[in-house]
C-alpha cells in the first residue's frame, strides 16, 4: 500500500537533470504545489507485453525528458504505470483505481481496443483525459467523448491508404489476411472495402490467430497467385507469414499497416522483404528523415532500456508529451495552480499543431487527429540494422472521416 500522507519532498530537490540549467529567474519559488500523476495502462505481463511494456517505457522516457516545465512550476510529476494484462476486466478495474486517485490528471494508454473501449467509459465518467498511442479502432473516438483522444490513425483511414497505394502500383488482385484482432481485422476490412471500390480483385479474405504455421494459407495464396498479399496485423505474425510465403515461391508484393513497422520484421522475414515484389507498409509515423525527433528518441530509448523500441513506443512518447503539454497549458491558464481534470481534457483539444516526434498533432472534436499524415514506406534492406533507412514512397494527408 502507499503512504497516504507522503512527506513533502525535500525543498532542495534538484531540477530534472535533463532540463538545461538555464532557467532560475525565481529560484526560491520552488514550493511544492502537489503531485501530478500521469498513468499508463498497457499489458505489462502476458503474451502481448512486448508491445505493452514499450508503451510504458516510451511514456516514461517522455515524462523524464519533458516534465521540466511542470517541475519548474513546482509540481512533482510522477508516472503511475498499470498493467491491464490485455484483459478488459483488469483494465476496467485499474481504470477505476486510476480515476479514484485525484492526483492523476492524464492517462496514456491501452494497446488493445478491447480494453480501451470499456475502460474509457470510466475515464469519461470521471472526466479524466486519455491519449491513446495505439488504438486504431473507430469506436474508440466515435462515441465523441471529450476525454478520449488518440494520436494514431484510424483503421478506416489506414486501410484506405493501403488500398489506394496498391491501386497506384497497378495491383490487380490482392489476398487479404488479418490477425483476428480488433486492430488487424479493422484495417483489413477497410482495405478490402476500398480495394473492391477501386476494382481490385480480392482473391481471398481470411483471418487467422495462427502465429507459426501458415502453410494452409500459403497454399491458398499460391493457388490464386495474387499481385499483392495484404496482412492486417502486427509484424511478429506477418514476418513468419511473409517468410513462409516466399519460401514456397510467392513472388508478389507484401503490404501491411503500421503494425509492420519494426526492425524485427526484417529479423524474422529477412530476404523475403526485398525479394520478389518487396514489401511496403503504411504508417502514421514517418521515418527519421521526416521527423528528426524520432532518431534521437530511438537513441535515447536504446540507451535507457537496452533495446530498440517496439511499435507504439514512439507514439506513447508523444501521447505523454501531449499530456504534459496540456497540463502545463492548463496550469499556466490558472496562474500556475493545479488544473482540474476537465481543464486538462479541454487543453488537449485546444492544442494546435503540437510537434511530436511522430507527427504534428491537432485534435478534432471527437479526439481524432485532424489531418493526420500517412506514409507508405518501402523496405529497402533485409538487414534489420538498416530498418531506419526505409524509403517513403508516398505521403498523404488525410482527415478522418467526418461523422
Amino acid at each position, binding site marked *: 500500500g502507499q503512504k497516504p500522507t507522503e512527506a513533502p519532498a525535500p525543498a532542495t530537490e534538484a531540477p530534472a537533470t535533463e532540463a538545461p540549467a538555464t532557467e532560475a529567474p525565481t529560484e526560491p519559488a520552488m514550493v511544492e504545489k502537489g503531485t501530478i500523476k500521469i498513468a499508463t495502462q498497457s499489458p505489462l*505481463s*502476458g*503474451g502481448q*507485453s*512486448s508491445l505493452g511494456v514499450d508503451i510504458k517505457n516510451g511514456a516514461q522516457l517522455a515524462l523524464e525528458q519533458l516534465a521540466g516545465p511542470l517541475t519548474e512550476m513546482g509540481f512533482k510529476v510522477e508516472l503511475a504505470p498499470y498493467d491491464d494484462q490485455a484483459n478488459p476486466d483488469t483494465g476496467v478495474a485499474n481504470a477505476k483505481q486510476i480515476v479514484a486517485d485525484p492526483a492523476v490528471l492524464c492517462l496514456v494508454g491501452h494497446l488493445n481496443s478491447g480494453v480501451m473501449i470499456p475502460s474509457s467509459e470510466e475515464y469519461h465518467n470521471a472526466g479524466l483525459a486519455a491519449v491513446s498511442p495505439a488504438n486504431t479502432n473507430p469506436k474508440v473516438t466515435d462515441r465523441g467523448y471529450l476525454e478520449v483522444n488518440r494520436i494514431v490513425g484510424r483503421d478506416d483511414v489506414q486501410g484506405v491508404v493501403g488500398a489506394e497505394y496498391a491501386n497506384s502500383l497497378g495491383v490487380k488482385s490482392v489476398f487479404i489476411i488479418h490477425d*483476428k484482432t480488433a486492430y488487424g481485422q479493422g484495417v483489413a476490412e477497410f482495405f478490402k472495402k476500398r480495394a473492391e471500390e477501386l476494382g481490385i480483385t480480392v*482473391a*481471398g*479474405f*481470411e*483471418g*487467422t*490467430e*495462427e*502465429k*507459426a*504455421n501458415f*502453410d*494452409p*494459407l500459403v*497454399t*491458398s495464396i*499460391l*493457388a*490464386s*497467385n495474387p499481385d499483392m498479399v495484404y496482412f492486417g496485423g502486427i509484424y*511478429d505474425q506477418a*514476418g*513468419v507469414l511473409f*517468410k513462409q510465403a516466399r*519460401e*514456397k*515461391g510467392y513472388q508478389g508484393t507484401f503490404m501491411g499497416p503500421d503494425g509492420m513497422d519494426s526492425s*524485427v520484421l526484417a*529479423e*524474422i522475414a*529477412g530476404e523475403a522483404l526485398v525479394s520478389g515484389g518487396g514489401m511496403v507498409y503504411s504508417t502514421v509515423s514517418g521515418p527519421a528523415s521526416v521527423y528528426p525527433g524520432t532518431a534521437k528518441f530511438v537513441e535515447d530509448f536504446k540507451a535507457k*532500456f*537496452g*533495446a*530498440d523500441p517496439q511499435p507504439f513506443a514512439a507514439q506513447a512518447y508523444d501521447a505523454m508529451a501531449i499530456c504534459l503539454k496540456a497540463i502545463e497549458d492548463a496550469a499556466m491558464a490558472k496562474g500556475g495552480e493545479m488544473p482540474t481534470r476537465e481543464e486538462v481534457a479541454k487543453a488537449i483539444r485546444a492544442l494546435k499543431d503540437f510537434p511530436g516526434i511522430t507527427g504534428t498533432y491537432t485534435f478534432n472534436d471527437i479526439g481524432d487527429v485532424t489531418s493526420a499524415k500517412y506514409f507508405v514506406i518501402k523496405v529497402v534492406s533485409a538487414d534489420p540494422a538498416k530498418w531506419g533507412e526505409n524509403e517513403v514512397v508516398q505521403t498523404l494527408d488525410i482527415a478522418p472521416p467526418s461523422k
Partner: protein
Amino acid sequence: MQRFLKSIQLRELLRPLGQMIAFSLGSSAVLSLIIIILALILDQTAVGASTMARFKVSLFSYTIVNLPQVLIDGLTLGFVYAAIALGYTMVYGVLEFINFAHSEIFAIGAFVGVEILIALKGREILSTEMSVGNAYWWLILALLAGMAAAGLAAVVVERLAYRPLRGAPRLVPLISAIGVSFFLQDAIRLIESITTGQFHRIIPTFGNFDQRLTFGSMPLGAGSISLGVQIKSLIVIIAAVVMLIGLNYLVNATKVGKAIRAVAQDRATASLMGIDVNHIIALTFLIGGMLGGAAGVLYALKFTRIDPFVGFFPGLKAFTAAVLGGIGNLTGALLGGIVLGLLETFAGTFMSIFTMGAAGAEYKDIFAFSILILVLIFRPHGLMGENVGQKA
C-alpha cells in the same frame, strides 16, 4: 535364447517405424479420399461454380492439384505435434496429470538452443555460406543443449513443485503445474530481457535449412504450383521419428521402461519390486523434458520466432493430439499428431474454398476439436487407447 531376445528388440525398433508409415499413409489416404469425394459432390453446386470463376479450374482439379502439397505440409505439422506430444505423454503416463508446465519446458529448450545459435552467429561461426556438414553439427549441438537444459529444468520442477504433492488429490498438482507455468514464463522473460533487452528471439539463418527441395509442379489455371518440401521440415520429421523410435524402445523393450510403467500404475507396489520410485519419476521428467527441449529447438528451426509464451498453443495442440491418439500411449501420440496435423492443414486450406469464403482458415482449430469430440464419442479412449481399468 540370446537370439530370441535380440529378435524381440529388433521388433520394438521396427514396429513403430512400420506403424508410422502405416499411419501416415493411412490417414493421408483416408482424408484425401474424403476431400476428393467432397470436391466431386460440391463441384456440381454453386461452390464449384465459384471456384471456376476464381481459379478458372473446376473444384475437383483445384483439390487434386493442391492435395500433394497439403499432404506434405500436414504431415510435417503432424510430426511437430507428435514430437511435443511425446513429452506430454511420457509425464502423463507416469503421474497421470496434465503437466501444464510442459509448454514452458519446451520454451526453455527452444531458448537455449536459439541463444546458442545466436551466439555462434555473433562470433561468425555460422553463416549462410558455411559448409552444409558443419551447419548440421552446430544444429545438433544446439539441439543437445536445448535438450539438456529442458531436461534439467523438468527435473528441478518435479523436485520442487510436484514431488511434495505426491498423494494429494488429483487436481492439486494440476494447479501447481499452472503455477510453474506462470512462473517459468516470466522467469524466461526476466532472464531474456535482462540479458538481451527483449524477450523474443529469432533463430539465425545459416546452413541450407530454409532451402526447399522441389520435385515437380502442378498446373493450375494459367500458372502452376510447385511441389516441394523444405529441408528443415525434413529435419523435423526425421528427428521426430528418431525420438519416437528411441522412446518406444526405451519404454517397451528395456527394464527401465518397464519400471516406468510399473511406477505409473502402482507406486507402492513398484517400490516393493525394488524400484526406486523417486528416481524413476525424476528420470521420466528428465526424458520428457529432453523430448520437450528437442521439440522446442526444432520448432524454432521450423517457425523462426520464439518468445516465452511460444509453448502455449503448440502445447495445447500436442496435448489434444495425445488425447486423440489415446493418452499415455506413445504410438497414439504419434498417430494423434499426424491426424491432427493433417486435419488442420486440410481444414485451413480447403475450408474457405468449400464454403465459398463463409468460413475459412480461422475455423481450423474448431474443426480439429470437433473431430476430436467425434472420435472420442466413438472411441472414448482415443484412437489407440485401450480400456483397461480395474474389473468390477
